[in-house]
């Protein structure tokens, strides 16, 4: 299972690199291409040269690149696909593709399989939804837009209160200790 995961991880990185390259080359954005390649090359760094903050850097970098590339006069699907595969790779790495924790234990193998299946499902669904959304032209009514913004504001409010609660609890437990 470990070797399968590694192969799939490498495949995700390669597909991501290819799709980003296709997008940036067709738009002749060499700087964007270089940045994407650098970020994807970090994928293949072994564990000892891959610090804990690297996934965040990769995620933010790729997200900024994809968002920026959406303004380019080329189909944004390339960048979407690149981002989806890159995210899949990051998720696989976070679940221990390169750690020695993977073993022949039944439970661990089952988890590895389950995780891969769900991840593949997420990737395919995201690709399909993105593809369909890009091909379809739809207009959001103004009232729906207001509702959407209100919903986002409420979610943010909930999220911030949750974060504050969490940090308060943490502080109290630290004091108790």
């Amino acid at each position: 299972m470990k070797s399968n995961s590694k192969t799939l991880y490498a495949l995700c990185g390669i597909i991501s690199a290819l799709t980003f390259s296709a997008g940036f080359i067709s738009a002749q954005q060499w700087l964007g291409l270089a940045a994407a390649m650098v970020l994807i090359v970090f994928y293949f760094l072994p564990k000892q040269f891959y610090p804990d903050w690297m996934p965040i850097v990769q995620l933010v970098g790729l997200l900024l690149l994809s968002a920026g590339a959406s303004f380019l006069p080329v189909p944004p699907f390339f960048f979407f696909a690149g981002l989806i595969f890159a995210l899949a790779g990051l998720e696989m790495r976070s679940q221990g593709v390169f750690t020695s924790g993977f073993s022949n234990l039944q439970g661990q193998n089952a988890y590895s399989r389950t995780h891969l299946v769900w991840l593949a499902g997420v990737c395919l669904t995201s690709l399909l939804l993105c593809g369909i959304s890009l091909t379809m032209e739809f207009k959001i009514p103004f009232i729906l837009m207001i509702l959407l913004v209100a919903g986002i504001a409420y979610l943010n409010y909930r999220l911030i209160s949750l974060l504050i609660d969490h940090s308060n609890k943490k502080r109290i437990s630290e004091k108790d200790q």
Partner: protein
Amino acid sequence: MSKKTYLIFIILNALILAALFSRNRAVALLCIPFLVFLGVGAVAAPRKVALRVNRELSILRTAEGLPVTVRLTVENIGGGIPRLQVIEPGFQGMELVEGDPTSCFSISQSEKLEISYTFKASRGIYSWQMLKLQASDPFGLFEQTCELSAPGRVYIFPEQVDLRQFKFRPMPNVRSTGPNLSRLPGPGIDFWGVREYHPGDALRTIHWRKSAHHPGTLITKEFEREEIADIGILLDARALSYYCVDGEKLFEHSVRAAASLATNFISQGNRVSMLILNDRLVRVFPGYGKHQLLRILEELSGCSKGERVSFDTLKYLPVKLFPNHSLIAIISPLLPGDFPYISRLKAEGYQLLLATPEATNPVKTRNAYITCAQRMAALERAGTLKQIQRLRVPVVKWNVNQPQEMSSQFARFVKVKTR
């Protein structure tokens, strides 16, 4: 919710705001992968977690550096859990040798999982009460944490050195058959003397050659009685005694010496007790045999240095805990003011043995004051040891920075005494 979920929410917010400000549809569509990710996590997250756990240890008492295997059994009595992570606390001094207790597992309904890992550890008592488990969706977005009772305890005994060559014979004070020569006639194997035959003496004890020299009388051989000695081990765990370079090493060596001496004395058949002087007085009452040795080693496993002021000097040492005329084996690096209390013990009729570890590698420095202070401290210590030796207290000292020094010094001690 995990940190990952918060991060995704932040990214979604940022993307939506960017899309609204830039009025770009493609930027808004970038939210899709994250939304799908969150949605799948929410759908696949376990609703109710019902687990049963058990912890088994391969061994309950072992020596320092030997592997201990912990076997955790997790039984799922609820619905299937796509991702289950065991959160096992690591202890200081514990080194993982095999397995990973924090790996993720998938467990289906009424399935039983066995997770095992092996660790090596330094001296101590390693105890677990609860087992923390984290059940979540396959991506670890929506977590549920539960703590279940899974007690376990392992004693890691201090490393012991072989003191078989250390043949120290204390004066016995317990009138019971044992291994120590008592300088009194009685049952034994070492020849003591001869006396006139008394009715009731065994015929095999008659000294026939001597009897031939004295016609009409029979002479009987007498043997030296062998008896048990009462031995008290006094381990100095005052933090003040170890405020020096290599203090931690000195303390570990003291503990090792206490364990080795206890093993040696108990294996000879003596009655051994122990007193550890740290934050509280740790006392092991006198006893014999394997169980007594286990009691002593268990106390030594968990002992640490103490900083309580009332035990900073040996003045208040409750020496009456040791039986009269027993041997007290003091294991201490010694403080300059300890000599009067040691002489008091001697005056009260106790037999004494002093085992003292020392770190003789001075700190290399060009500072003249430090060099001078080191020399003065060394001289002061040498003086104290000399004074103690003048009281006819046998002293065994060894350098903790040299391997095998402890056992060789104890062996050499015998050679010096038997010369």
